[in-house]
């Protein structure tokens, strides 16, 4: 059915809905709808979180009531606390509070981009412009592989830089977990593994966001593919299906942001938390075991 729909939509290709479209140009650089939405998402996230937590820093440490945020701050604090206690702490252990601002930022930035991408701005502006799908004022920033790749690259930088900063030789040593004579084989394999993690991170978010939007575009395309009574007969279930998929996509937007955040935390944890950290607590005198990262 989906393939048939896609074939039907050749004239108004649903891919157009998810691809970047040039809106204007600044000094020879094309500014696309996805870039604009990324900026909008950034401003939206900043406004939302700054306004939600603006009174939070002035809490009286002796008064529990004043430490509890009000309104939307409460909701965001639940999310922050969940990410800190349930996601970051089991993985990052005593490094949790060092990395948690980055982890929170990743989650809210990706979630904001994912969520704003679901706004049917194209459809709404299309009603007024007369061209139903081609205003391209909006777009999903995370539906662009360069965007997700850049975010994954940030994770890579966090892994490597903090691995070297906090682990030093222990971090480098985990690139050769076996005997030294196997190093020529193991080191490339470990480096490939590291790149594969980042690649998986990139593709997972990109593919999920793009697939959801293509599916929505296809479903809505069914409604416009035919005219007359047949068009109405097709449009009703198609729009109902699109509404259901949109609800699912809201969940997917949160889920994918969570997965990206979780994997980022996991990868950073693999770089900065070593088994000997746990041993150190038991043997403060300094019985350093092997330096393999916690998996």
């Amino acid at each position: 059915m989906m393939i048939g729909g896609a074939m039907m939509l050749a004239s108004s290709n649903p891919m157009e809905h998810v691809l970047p479209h040039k809106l204007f140009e600044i000094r020879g650089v094309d500014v696309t709808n996805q870039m604009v939405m990324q900026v909008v998402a950034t401003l939206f996230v900043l406004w939302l979180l700054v306004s939600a937590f603006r009174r939070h820093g002035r809490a009286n440490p002796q008064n529990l009531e004043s430490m509890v945020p009000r309104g939307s701050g409460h909701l965001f604090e639940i999310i922050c606390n969940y990410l800190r206690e349930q996601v970051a702490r089991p993985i990052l252990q005593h490094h949790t509070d060092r990395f948690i601002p980055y982890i929170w930022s990743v989650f809210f930035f990706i979630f904001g981009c994912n969520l704003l991408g679901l706004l049917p701005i194209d459809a709404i502006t299309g009603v007024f412009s007369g061209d139903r799908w081609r205003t391209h004022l909006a777009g999903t920033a995370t539906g662009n592989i360069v965007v997700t790749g850049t975010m994954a690259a940030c994770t890579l930088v966090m892994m490597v830089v903090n691995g070297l900063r906090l682990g030093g030789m222990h971090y480098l040593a985990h690139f050769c977990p076996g005997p030294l004579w196997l190093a020529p084989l193991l080191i490339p394999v470990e480096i490939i593994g590291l790149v594969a993690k980042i690649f998986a991170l990139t593709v997972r978010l990109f593919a999920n966001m793009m697939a959801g939007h293509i599916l929505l575009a296809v479903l809505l395309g069914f409604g416009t593919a035919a005219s007359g009574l047949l068009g109405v007969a097709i449009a009703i279930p198609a729009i109902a299906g699109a509404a259901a998929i949109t609800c699912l996509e809201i969940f997917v937007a949160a889920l994918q942001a969570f997965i990206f955040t979780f994997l980022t935390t996991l990868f950073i944890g693999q770089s900065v938390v070593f088994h000997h950290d746990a041993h150190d607590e038991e043997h403060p005198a300094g019985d350093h075991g092997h330096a393999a990262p916690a998996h």
Partner: protein
Amino acid sequence: MALMKSASGAGVLGLLLPAMLLASEAHGAEKINPFEGTVANAVVTLITFGIVLFVLGKFVWPAVLTGLQRREEFIRNSLQTAKQEREEAEKLLKQYQEQIAGARQQATAIVDEGRRDAEVLRHKIQAEAKTDADAMLERARREIGIARDTAVKDLYTLSGKLATDLAGRIIQKEIDPATHERLIRDSINDLSTAKLHN
């Protein structure tokens, strides 16, 4: 769940993309590249994410983190204090229970001692009462004996006098007082002697 969703997303993408690419090519449309992106995308991503990191890291996350840490500290301290107070209360309770048990033992000892003292006192009072009663009885007996002797003596005297008067009348002769006195005394002596013999 996440893996299933990822797999389903990738599956949908894998199913749709070739069909749409094929369709667009078939219609002579512009060639579509789903992996389209430029360096500008990366730069914008870095800038926007950098701004998010900076602004939130500077103005929001420290407050949130401090709030969470303060709350954790507050709750930890409250629990610690509650635990200490509970231990202290348990210690006090144990102390009070020991004190109550001690007081109870002391009270029992005092009651026993009081009972013993009361018993001793009772015996003492009984003995004294008995002694007093015996003494009173003895005195009463003595007084009764004296009274009886006096009464008997008076009776003898009166009887002697009556007898003498009667005898005087019978013999029509007045007896002088000295004889009268002697006769009475002799009669009494006879009566006393007779009583002793009886």
